[in-house]
């Protein structure tokens, strides 16, 4: 596998009174597409800049393939960055922008030409080589920035919110392009984003960050299905999140079937592998798309089904799906997502003020944190 593994141990960084990073440790594998995900101000960009060499951490270490790189200036590290604002050199043509690292290294002209075109072809911009950056569209500039960052054949590519300046459609397209490039080149990608959708769709693994801490590291599936904290559950996708008291625990095979008492909602059954005990307070999450909604009472006799009645407070139609805010009790509204799939998806349309039944299986809920 090409690329380097990147190990970060105990890195902290403060700007004045503001603690941007608090004792962060991460291990990023060779060739991995690794995302740093978090809201603005969570320290993800600071961490990326430390890896690139633009910032020096107050303490901690950064290793590429086991070699300490903190003493090295940015130009000596085998990592290149794709900047958020592209940072293309306005006085140089696209060709010269991409050729810049090779010119610095005084590579012979013939080889420069060959290599620049190799990478311009990779990003499908070979026809624009003679243009100035100002003549390109945002998406094209982004691709130049990627080609320029790759031409030195770095072992780590750092991407600082590279798609944030593009419109939604183009973003989707570029994301697929990035993934393809990553598959082709196979070096380590470290991708900073605040957009959970982006991170979920391309990453091998994600680190969710908040206020200078890494809250969870895992595959997109793990992060979405088994969030480690309330923050992660709320930040990744939409969810219904409540605190509840454990009132009963019984063994169900490898797992535990737990009954929670959630004020306003009532008894909720949920399976978990965590060790929970009666009397503890836990936070509980159920994703909107896992809740079934129907106007007729579901005909099931399964014991692990949670069933509630409610009234549609607000239906939000968005083409392929409808989101319902369903009032289950006076102070509690559940978010429910219903996909509009195909002909078998019949039944009367659910409308505003309809009385509905909400149901989900105990397996679909998830206990996030044990609080006390």
């Amino acid at each position, binding site marked *: 596998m090409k690329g380097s593994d990147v190990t970060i141990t105990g890195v902290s960084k403060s700007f004045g009174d503001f603690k941007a990073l608090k004792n962060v440790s991460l291990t990023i594998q060779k060739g991995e597409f690794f995302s740093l995900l978090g809201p603005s101000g969570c320290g993800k960009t600071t961490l990326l800049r430390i890896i690139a060499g633009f910032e020096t951490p107050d303490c901690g270490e950064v290793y590429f393939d086991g070699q300490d790189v903190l003493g090295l200036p940015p130009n000596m590290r085998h990592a290149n960055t794709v*900047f958020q604002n592209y940072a293309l050199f306005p006085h*140089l043509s696209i060709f*010269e922008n991409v050729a*810049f690292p090779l010119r610095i290294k005084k590579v012979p002209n013939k080889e420069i030409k060959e290599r620049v075109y190799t990478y311009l072809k990779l990003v499908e911009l070979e026809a624009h080589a003679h243009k100035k950056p100002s003549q390109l569209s945002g998406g094209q500039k982004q691709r130049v920035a990627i080609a320029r960052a790759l031409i030195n054949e770095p072992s780590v590519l750092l991407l600082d919110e590279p798609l944030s300046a593009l419109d939604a459609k183009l973003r989707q397209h570029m994301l697929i392009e990035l993934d393809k490039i990553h598959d082709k080149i196979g070096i380590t990608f470290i991708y900073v984003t605040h957009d959970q959708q982006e991170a979920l769709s391309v990453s091998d693994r994600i680190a969710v960050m908040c206020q200078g801490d890494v809250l969870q590291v895992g595959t997109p599936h793990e992060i979405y299905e088994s969030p480690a904290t309330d923050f992660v559950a709320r930040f990744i996708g939409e969810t219904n999140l409540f605190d509840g008291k454990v009132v009963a625990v019984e063994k169900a095979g490898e797992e535990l079937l737990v009954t929670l008492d959630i004020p306003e909602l009532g008894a909720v059954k949920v399976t978990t592998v965590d060790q929970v005990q009666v009397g503890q307070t836990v936070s509980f999450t159920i994703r909107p798309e896992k809740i079934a909604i129907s106007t007729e009472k579901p005909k099931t006799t399964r014991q692990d089904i949670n069933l509630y009645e409610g009234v549609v407070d607000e239906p939000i139609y968005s083409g392929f799906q409808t989101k319902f805010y369903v009032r289950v009790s006076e102070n509690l509204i559940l978010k429910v997502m219903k996909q509009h799939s195909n002909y078998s998806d019949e039944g009367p349309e659910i409308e505003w003020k309809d009385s509905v039944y909400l149901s989900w299986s105990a397996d679909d809920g998830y206990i996030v944190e044990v609080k006390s």
Partner: protein
Amino acid sequence: MKPALSKKNYGPLYAGPIALWFTLFFAAPLIIIVLYSFMKKGLHGGVEWEFSLAAYEALANATFVTITIRTLVTSIIATVLTILIALPCGYFMAKSKNQTLLLLLVIIPFWTNFLIRVYAWIAILGNNGFLNDFLKATGLVKNYIQFLYNQESVILVLVYMYLPYAILPLFSTIDKFDFSLLEAARDLGATKLQSMTKVLLPNIRSGLFTAVLFTFIPIFGAYAVPLLIGGKDSYMLGNVIADQLTKTRNWPLAAAISMVITVVTTVGVFVMMALQKREARRAEEAARFGNTTTLEEINNAAEIPDSHNPAGGRP
């Protein structure tokens, strides 16, 4: 369709005031100087209205040539030093959080009269000046050091005088410069110095151009500084003109020397503009270097090098 009746071209009318201004205060004096330089010298100053090349013939003497060369060399050295000092100043100001304060500090000297500031330097550098007093008080020197009345002191004071004129345009262009480009350059393998020369300087070319003009042109015509700070061997063209006007009362010669200054500075400006154009053309050529590539060459460009292309793909 009804034609727009009111759509008259008022352009020349709007340009009127500025045209009048230029004619009165720029073109007319210049024409007068050109005319005077081609006339006979009046007895007590002024000119006699008779064509003569006497003034230009008088230029062809060794003293004058020496002074012209000295003026040119002094101006070039002073300009280069000014720019070298102004560049880091402008850079620092652009990056600073106290821009307003620093700008104020640069502008404050303008609040004091030009001559007063020249005399201030005499007070500092004079044989009984502050600097010598200080040196004597610390026991570093016994008597005094002759700082004034030489070429070096003239250059020092000229640099001081025209530094703000270089700092301001440089600051304003560097302020607009996107500093993340320097990080990008460093990231792509450039050393700190390379990031400055290959990315910062080409992007602030217009500011550099302005700064050079704003310092070179006034320094080339300098009068008061060489007169007050310089010695016998630091006479510059400006001083010769003044002498011709007030002492020798040879107005045509004074006009002819003025013409020399005008021509040299104009040529200087054109040379700089040509250099700029050449730079731009070079950049274009470099771009064409990419453009002239044939399709075949593009197609021949290797796929991502093998060393860079693992067999396995993703982990």
